[in-house]
């Protein structure tokens, strides 16, 4: 009788231990699931937002050779990614009646523009009341130079054969129309067309924007 009671008591204790172990295992699994949920949900949610905003300029982009433009980026029709990107950067883009800005970060061959190299920008008449071209660092700041020459425009660029123009960029002073770039730093060119029929992006493929040809490197 005593042996039987002892056996029952031992079995009952084992069952209780098993229940405790199961409960403990369940708790560990729950914590693991919660951590997995948070990591996947927050990591993917925030990470994908960060990636999408950083690459918002790849959306709704118009390309003409090495030049890129975002005609609707500043309008109320802009996509949510562009709106978020602009809010983050504090942008103040041209309105649709004012004009359109084209940005080139590569030459005609698709090679990134290098401040240590010389490039020749050539073009002719453009369908706009005025146009300007600016050389800027990748973060948008201007390249300091003694003459404070940051760009050219349709009224001060030297004309060759009546309508054509040629601007050279490079770290060292060059004859003719020259824009200084910083050696060993990438740069971009911004070409703005003011009061153009193509501001909304219509017929943009017909625009013959200037060509950017690599000349030499230091």
């Amino acid at each position, binding site marked *: 009788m005593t042996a039987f009671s002892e056996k029952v008591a031992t079995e009952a204790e084992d069952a209780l231990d098993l229940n405790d172990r199961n409960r403990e295992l369940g708790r560990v699994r729950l914590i693991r699931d919660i951590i997995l*949920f948070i990591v996947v*949900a927050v990591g993917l949610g925030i990470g994908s937002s960060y990636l999408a905003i950083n690459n918002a300029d790849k959306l709704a982009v118009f390309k003409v050779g090495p030049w890129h433009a975002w005609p609707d980026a500043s309008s109320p029709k802009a996509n*949510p*990614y562009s709106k978020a990107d602009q*809010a983050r*950067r504090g*942008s*103040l883009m041209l309105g649709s009646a004012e004009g359109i800005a084209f940005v080139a970060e590569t030459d005609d061959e698709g090679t990134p523009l290098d401040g240590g190299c010389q490039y020749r920008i050539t073009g002719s008449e453009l369908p706009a009341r005025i146009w300007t071209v600016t050389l800027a660092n990748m973060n948008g700041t201007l390249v300091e130079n003694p003459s*404070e020459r940051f*760009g050219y425009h349709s009224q001060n660029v030297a004309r060759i054969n009546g309508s054509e123009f040629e601007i050279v960029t490079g770290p060292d002073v060059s004859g003719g129309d020259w824009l200084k770039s910083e050696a060993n730093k990438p740069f971009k060119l911004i070409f703005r067309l003011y009061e153009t029929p193509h501001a909304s992006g219509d017929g943009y493929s017909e625009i013959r924007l200037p060509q950017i040809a690599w000349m030499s490197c230091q």
Partner: protein
Amino acid sequence: MIRTILLICAALTTAAIIHIGTIFSLPYFAKNDIWHKVLELAPLNRVYVISSPTEAVKVSADLDPAFAFGLCRVDVSAAPMLMKGTFANDFWSLDYVDQMGRSQFSLTNQISGPKLNAVLATKGQQRLLSERPDLIDETTIVITATDSKGILLVRAFIASERDRPPTARSLDRVLCKPLWDDADTE
């Protein structure tokens, strides 16, 4: 196994919700947007002139160094905003930008000639203006305000660097003020 798959599905759904929420809420919570930059620079109802190219690109990399700028932070909740000025520049433009930095309306001097004369008004204020034609000129361009607060930005083209100081003076003289004071309406 099923439990893990369900968990990952729930996490992916939540990630999508976080993604959409972040993208849509960022313009409302951003502190580096153009509105907050202008808030630090320009007082309400007064034109802040940016003549220096380096200062212009510090405010926004989108500003063209070949231009001088006049920024006026406006609030049309009490009265429409009147903007008046005269420019001798070959090209100038006016851009109405909302608090989110979106261009809602823009015009150039091809429409206005050398004189800038525009009123920014809500639709309700425009109804009032139509009953009181004496408040504005026939040539005034009425712009519809999409929000009570916004920015009026004048871009003036600098053909020659010699034109920069006189253009800055022209921008400084631009009137940007409520069309009427509270006292006038009482």
